[in-house]
């Protein structure tokens, strides 16, 4: 653990939280899905930093590829935009 890893972790944590808020607040569901896959990407880097290469591989394949594709397929079959509330 050197100083560069610490800086990377701090930037990644802030990036993750911003992406999560963005994913929740956007009305366009496709954009929200891509933001969620960005969270998974940062998360797999975090797992690698935390010395868990097995979990990093799983998160990189499942979280980034497969979860995103099944959400995109569902959005293609339903509606892309969330309705306005209240």
């Amino acid at each position, binding site marked *: 653990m050197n100083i560069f890893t610490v800086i990377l972790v701090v930037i990644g944590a802030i990036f993750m939280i911003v992406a999560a808020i963005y994913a929740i607040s956007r009305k366009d569901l496709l954009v929200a899905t891509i933001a969620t896959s960005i969270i998974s990407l940062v998360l797999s880097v975090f797992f690698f930093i935390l010395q*868990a*290469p*097995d979990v*990093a*591989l*799983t998160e990189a*394949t*499942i979280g980034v*590829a*497969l979860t995103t*594709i*099944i959400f995109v*397929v*569902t959005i*293609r*079959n339903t509606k892309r935009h969330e309705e306005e509330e209240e």
Partner: protein
Amino acid sequence: MKRIITILLLGVTGYFVADAVFSIPFGVDKLNIAKEYLLNSPEELKVANTVTAVVVNFRGFDTLGEVTVLFLAATGLGSILFRRRKYHTGLNPQREAPQASRIVQVGGKLLFPLILLLGAYVFIHGHLTPGGGFQGGVIIATGYLLLLVSFRKFAVKHSSLTWVEAVAGVTFAGIGLTGLVFGKDFLENFLPTGVLNSLLSGGIVGIIYVAVGFKVASELTGILDTMLSIKVEVDEENEEN
């Protein structure tokens, strides 16, 4: 109004959960049962990757249950999205969708065998390097996903997927039951363990992880094929209601 109540509720919950979580020390040695696993995995089982040893051997029954859950998810998905035969032509029903570009098609053909090779490498070396049955299976499923999105006429044969899945599941459970014949517990190692850090080491761990790899690959390919072959429009039968 509802939003304010939710934020207040989450604030209170978050305060107490944060209080509990931040009292856990970070980065210090908290091992107790893991010490036993870290000792046993290379000494008795000769498995280099301790995570694999925990997943497949020490908690193998847990993994058997997990594979069952995945099987149930694939089956449930198929039955939820079941459609009548007359709509199902056997082709990939993205007929209305435009053909993928030539670059994607040639790239998909070129990359598909390499992706299969990577997946097979990952689950065969699951007891030596990071990775294993789950990761390798998912990598193989992404290879099939590449073909499914590239070619409109590409369809996976669900009967052969079911066979691969069944054989892999029977292998997993059968190895566990064979242990009972040799006077061991269910899913306990009964084969010679070999030398640490060689390919043929770890007894039953490698065989079980290969079986898990085939099972996960076939189940996830089935899930992806079912999800991708949904028709876009609303069913005609429901518009009458």
